[in-house]
């Protein structure tokens, strides 16, 4: 099933080339102004529509997945985080889920050894968790660092983050840790999909595409910073133009930058229609964001409707004689 990854890979190359050559052919205004604006609009509108769509669906039942001891008798120690019965507990559970990927941390790997032991064995599988955390945090840092292009003066936090990210102080311009971690994590995630039979089987083109896209974005970004020197002042002039809604296209910005910007724009535009929406979904998942207190506090189903039931009277009418004969109490004697 090579198409599943070759087509997304080719698509990312092609997209890059389109912007690279297009900008050279005088279409800089399109790749530098029109498309980024469209992409941002698509992202915001799409994101909001998607989340509102989820929010519009009812939550008829309170069905958290419980991952620890419930609250019951006072002297039994409850697991307040993995089986919360209060809003605070849910809040902590969600924080840990969102910021530390707690569920992924539990990951194990099963192996079956046919002839030696005939046992299924489980080992802790931490690498997915490490790679996922590394990827998401590196991405976040990269994203935040880029605020230096959209703010003037650059806020202290962004500068601080940059300093932190460049703490190793290697090379000139200084190496950013995120610039190493991000591509490494993406490559790991990609390798899993390609080389683990189970993952290869479940992966779709839409799983490879974002990985290649982000790799493309990272590659173009890194090469601009470290290898092909670009006109940073010109770029900042342009990005500031974008945020202040007075876009300009300064001269001398290379095709590489347009390629980079275009891939980023694609990522934004693609985001709401894709699995990347897990960013929004994780907040709304009813198996995680609800308290396990359904027996203590009634949950109301907005569309609860009456159903036909077999009443006791129907039942007694059906079985009265047999019940009387067996000495079971009845409401009506005949």
């Amino acid at each position, binding site marked *: 099933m090579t198409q599943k990854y070759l087509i997304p890979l080719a698509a990312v190359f092609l997209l890059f080339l389109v912007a690279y050559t297009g900008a050279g052919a005088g279409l800089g205004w399109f790749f530098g102004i029109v498309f980024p604006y469209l992409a941002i609009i698509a992202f915001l509108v799409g994101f909001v529509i998607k989340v509102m769509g*989820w929010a519009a*669906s009812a939550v008829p039942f309170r069905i958290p997945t419980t991952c620890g001891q419930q609250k019951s008798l006072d002297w039994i120690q409850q697991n307040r985080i993995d089986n919360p019965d209060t809003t605070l507990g849910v809040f902590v559970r969600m924080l840990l889920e969102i910021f530390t990927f707690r569920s992924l941390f539990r990951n194990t790997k099963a192996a*079956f050894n046919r002839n030696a032991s005939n046992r299924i064995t*489980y080992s802790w599988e931490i690498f997915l968790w490490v790679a996922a955390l590394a990827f998401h945090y590196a991405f976040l840092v990269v994203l935040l660092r880029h605020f230096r292009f959209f703010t003037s003066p650059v806020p202290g936090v962004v500068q601080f983050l940059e300093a932190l990210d460049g703490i190793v102080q290697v090379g000139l311009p200084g190496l950013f840790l995120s610039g190493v971690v991000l591509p490494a994590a993406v490559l790991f995630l990609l390798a899993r999909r390609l080389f683990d039979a*189970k*993952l290869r089987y479940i992966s779709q*083109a839409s799983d490879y595409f974002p990985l290649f896209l982000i790799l493309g974005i990272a590659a173009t970004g890194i090469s601009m910073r470290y290898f092909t020197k670009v006109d940073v002042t010109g770029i900042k002039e342009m990005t500031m133009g974008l945020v202040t809604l007075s876009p300009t296209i300064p001269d001398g910005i290379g095709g590489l930058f347009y390629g980079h910007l275009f891939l980023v724009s694609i990522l934004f535009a693609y985001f709401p229609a894709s699995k990347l929406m897990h960013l929004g979904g994780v907040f709304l*998942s009813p198996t995680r964001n609800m308290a396990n207190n359904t027996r203590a506090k009634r949950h109301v189903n907005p569309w609860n409707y009456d159903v036909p039931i077999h009443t006791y009277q129907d039942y007694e009418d059906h079985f009265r004689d047999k*019940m009387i004969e*067996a000495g079971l109490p009845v409401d009506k004697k005949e």
Partner: protein
Amino acid sequence: MADELTPDELLDKIDYGADSGNWMDTTKSVQIRPGMYCYAAKAESVETLGLPNARPWNPVEEDWKLPDDWQQILHNGIKERLERFRTFKIFMDVCVRCGACADKCHFFLGTGDPKNMPVLRAELLRSVYRNDFTTAGKILQNIPGGQRLGGNRPLTLDVLKEMWYYFFQCTECRRCSVFCPYGIDTAEITIMARELFNLIGLNIDWIATPVSNCYQTGNHLGIQPHAFKDMLEFFVEDLEDITGVDCTPNFQKKGADILFITPSGDVFADPGTYTCQGYLILFKYLKDKYGLDVTWSTYASEGGNFGFFTSHETMKRLNAKMYAEAKRLGVKWILGGECGHMWRVIHQYMDTMNGPADFLEVPVNPITGTRFTNAASTKMVHITEFTADLIKHGKLELDKGRNANRIMTFHDSCNPARGMGLLDEPRYVINNVCDNFYEMPPNTIRENTFCCGSGAGLNAGENMELRMAGALPRATALKHVHEKYGVNTLGTICAIDRAALSTLCEYWVPEVEVAGIHELVGNALILPGEKERTEDLRMEPLPGCEEEE
């Protein structure tokens, strides 16, 4: 029994890395294979509840006798459920196919069939959702090769059959959901899929017939009121032989303190019957010592709810009896016996569906004074919560020695574990009635527990290969403690488990027996005025009373 396949043959089939083609290519070759599927619902059973498309049909025949507009019905059904269930909508949208859930399913672990990876099970339906309900899907439909590239599929008959096959290979155990970073619960997706199947009459008989029985007669097994009474009286006779005490229960007693409801399986089949006898002993004890009045009901004589495996509506229709009967009898609150899915329904659905139960009182144990605030609204208490509370307050006189021959481990049933969190209450009870207790490995207990492989209505006879394959992870863990600590008894608080795990043990670990927790309580509890007991509830000699050779 799994007459076709020996354990060795079954083990030979397992390979976790075999298939790496495009799963969509194999859709057409899906063979609904004997041993892996359950028979179709009988027309009469479907009719009892007035559910759609009652007719005789057979899954292995080409023609499933579907209504002409079945695609439209399913399409509308999906649409409606996307609006009604946020879970469904989000779970359709956000899976990133990270594979964290892939090797968490006992059916995948036991069969190696890649379509039993939870993520792929969900993808079977998700691929249809993507095609018919997303903008991207609609665009890709118009591009040659687009559907395939997007992993999207139109809802064809082959797709339907494949979904049917695999959604009846999921026991709704929620283990996958524990590991998913977004909490995606494939059980919930299976619930939706089965609801959809029921719109066009595609239930299995092992679910439809119990549902119909329960609706009409009061319990899954279709035990009529007089027979139900007879069966309990039969236990009473045995108990009199064993203990010398008359443990006759109340039936439909108006004004009793507590209504007790348990799965009918415990009245009907060993070893559940011993658990049932344990209840009778406990209630007799509480009546004599403390004057607590517990009643049974033949109308609400089913704690289990196979409606849950049919549709939310059917679940509600069956569950309604519990509150209706409690109200009619004028009891204070309801006590529920040992059962798995029954407790998920009570804990997470009952009050919402059929409440508010404002005619009942917040449950208070009159003997200990404990207020069960965790059940303040639903007003139903789990029997291990109740018994644990009694033991903690020293209200039960127990002779652990009578269980000295039992070297125990405990199987957490999926629903109480992952849909409730009832983990330490049964352990507390076990430790107070028995001296030898060993846990199975941590990856296989508590919230990580492995399903018996026969839940969610799949404990039929014809799908034994599937059941025994799904049982393998549990069996492996059990075998481990059997070999290491000499465990000879697998405790459980689920009626389906008592049947299913017995079959599991017979197949995989024949040296181990299955027992309900209240069977052990019944053995240990010293009834006022009892004779010197020489036999346990199974009428086997108590430890120390074995006959001299």
